[in-house]
């Protein structure tokens, strides 16, 4: 955490990166934090670009449409390597790519000039704290936790819709394994040992789902928050030339983390929508 103390008028100004996002204003009882505000701006940017692009789609593509078609094609190829079926990729692509673009724009907002620079001074616990108006959206654990839980819950819903509720339930609480014992025990006695183990494995998978939520959210939060703190520390050493390689690093890390999140969501959804083979 970097603390820079400016003595002005006999008071010290504390500027440090807190783990939680600081509130900036209230909308009728609902506190809006700076990360939330930045996420709204990112959302607004995405909606504007998306709608204006959709309205200008022509059969003979212009330059911008060409670029976007290439990007979408590359993404669909990447998704094909996971789902092994073009129609499944096309079905899941809007869901997964919205994760990708939202997280990408949120990550890159953290390094935009002006973010974290303008703010107000509030006095808290007897010292003056600088609260910036804008801060990267994904640098707040709330955002990443929300995105991760949304992704995991959606993968369950997709699974139930695709495979059917009974089959999907049996992936976790394996009742079918117990029902099969009386049927198969005469032909194949090892079923008495194997099937309870299968049922136990199914129960352990439930814990795995919680681990998925935790790992998705913490990976993204940790990378972006650590990047913020790193940039602040480097700027505290010398604000002119030293932050440049770290800014490059942050650009690349933002892109890679968004890609990782999207690919993981795709993997989870495609695992839960495939029927189990024997």
């Amino acid at each position: 955490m970097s603390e820079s103390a400016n003595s002005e008028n006999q008071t010290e100004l504390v500027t440090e990166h807190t783990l939680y996002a600081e509130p900036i204003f209230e909308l009728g009882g609902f506190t809006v934090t700076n990360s939330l505000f930045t996420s709204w701006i990112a959302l607004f940017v995405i909606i504007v670009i998306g709608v204006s692009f959709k309205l200008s789609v022509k059969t003979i593509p212009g330059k911008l449409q060409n670029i976007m078609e290439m990007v979408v094609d590359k993404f669909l190829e990447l998704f094909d390597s996971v789902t092994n079926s073009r129609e499944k990729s096309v079905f899941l692509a809007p869901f997964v790519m919205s994760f990708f673009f939202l997280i990408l724009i949120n990550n890159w907002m953290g390094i935009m000039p002006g973010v974290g620079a303008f703010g107000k001074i509030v006095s808290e616990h007897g010292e003056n704290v600088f609260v910036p108006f804008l801060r990267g959206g994904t640098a707040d654990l709330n955002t990443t936790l929300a995105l991760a839980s949304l992704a995991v819950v959606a993968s369950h819903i997709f699974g139930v819709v695709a495979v059917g509720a009974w089959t999907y339930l049996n992936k976790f609480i394996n009742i079918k394994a117990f029902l099969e014992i009386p049927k198969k025990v005469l032909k194949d006695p090892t079923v008495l040992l194997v099937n309870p183990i299968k049922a136990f494995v199914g129960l352990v998978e439930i814990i795995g789902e919680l681990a998925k939520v935790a790992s998705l959210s913490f990976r993204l939060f940790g990378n972006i928050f650590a990047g913020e703190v790193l940039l602040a520390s480097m700027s505290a050493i010398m604000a002119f030339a030293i932050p440049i390689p770290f800014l490059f690093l942050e650009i690349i890390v933002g892109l890679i983390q968004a890609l990782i999140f999207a690919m993981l969501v795709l993997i989870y959804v495609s695992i839960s929508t495939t029927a189990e083979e024997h």
Partner: protein
Amino acid sequence: MFAKAIAIALGSIAPALGIGYIGAKAMESIGRNPEAAGKILVPMLLACAFAEAIAIYALVIAFSIK
């Protein structure tokens, strides 16, 4: 103060070794088959990010210790 340092120091030994191993294997397979470099890049980056995530968990703990 020392708890923060020890948390992040111990927590990043294993991911560093892991990423080095992933990179080494990737280099070896590119050396064997230089045309596959583009295909190897994306899965290697994916694996690196997974290994890095463990170090990030340790970093978050280090930040939240007072």
